[in-house]
């Protein structure tokens, strides 16, 4: 289990674009894992508000952002005045995991958190 790299989870609370089962399962497994994490209700809303809380997050070395499409997340941070260093993304020092396209199993395995109760049904739901 990874102990070191910080995690930021986006709940995407103000729209139904991230599949409910994926965001619920990822959050549940994150909670059960015992890993420390940061979670926000909606990165889009924070970006529109230019929330200054995004600045320290964007600079966190090793950050793994669990949200949606990396291109969207990268430019949302930038629009908020909290740009993520592109070289950090390129080098994998900051990672953006996509709950719109990937299964909860795939996300959790990238986060290094233990498997869910029924990974097969999850995989089927994503097909």
């Amino acid at each position, binding site marked *: 289990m990874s102990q070191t790299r910080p995690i930021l989870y986006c709940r995407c*609370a103000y729209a139904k674009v991230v599949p409910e089962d994926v965001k619920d399962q990822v959050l549940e497994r994150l909670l059960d894992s015992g890993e420390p994490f940061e*979670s926000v209700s909606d990165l*889009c809303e924070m970006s*529109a508000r230019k929330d200054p*809380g995004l600045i*320290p997050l964007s600079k966190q070395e090793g950050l793994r952002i669990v949200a949606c499409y990396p291109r*969207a997340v990268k430019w949302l941070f930038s629009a908020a005045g909290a740009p993520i260093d592109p070289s950090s993304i390129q080098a994998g020092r900051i990672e953006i995991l996509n709950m719109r396209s990937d299964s909860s199993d795939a996300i959790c395995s990238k986060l290094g958190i233990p498997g869910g109760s029924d990974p097969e049904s999850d995989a089927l739901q994503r097909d």
Partner: protein
Amino acid sequence: MVATNPERPRVLLYEGRSSKPMDVALRRQLVPSLLDRGYTVTRITQTASLGNLGHTELIVLGNFEQQPELSSDNAALRIHTRDVSSDTFETLMEYIEGVAQGVSQARPHWKPWFPVIDYDRCTNCMQCLSFCLFDVYGVNQANQITVQNQTNCKTDCPACSRVCPEVAILFPKYKAGPINGDEISQEDLRREAMKVDISSLLGGDIYSMLKDRSIKAKSRFSKERDDDRALKERQRCLDKLNSNVQSLEIPAEVLSSLPSLDQIQAKAQQAKHRAEQALAQQASSRESTSGGPSEDPSTTRPSH
């Protein structure tokens, strides 16, 4: 920029030293509920040092064996500590909402729907600025296109992203790629390459065309008595309009709230003027810094 609302408190699940982990079922119910209500939730385990995310109120929840020692570089932070060992989900939510009400106002409901520019692709052509009637776009001091009034954007309307010749406008909450930020496929690029100026696509002025449709639709509705039939008619008009403006996908509410034709034309002129001004200023500042016209990398068409 959206008018800043006082922030909701940040909620901290303290599962660090001198505490026991929170009840699994309670934690599973509590955290998604808090996030869905707009709270920021942090769990800490090893360290007692908090990052500063700009909050002024912090609610610390835990099964404490002794009071946690927390340090923050935010001197203004007020900490509310709650031992949850005898709490239920309901009592805990009541407590948290009680603290929140004391310090913040409810956020106005707004689906965060607004364009986000991918500057790796944008060539600063200003077509989006010329197109948008609602002052969503502007230019910054470097005469670069920027999104300046996010809340002016019409919810669920992705029309300007269709106008962008570079597929550089994202709406992260849009249903499909590449507008939602998904990778851009060869097919997307082929479609964009075929895209001509939106006005010529419609055989004239897009705004007068939209307005004309809107007037026709409105006069139909006013004669309509039966609600169901009116609804169907709206849908039919919308479908017809949508097929005319190809895939602009402008929502019915936007069409029905378009200003008068004169106002639209004045607005379009203004936007066009601002776009032209910004481009001219950009060109002249390029000339003055280089001693002659040259290619600015920010306005160079990227090689996709």
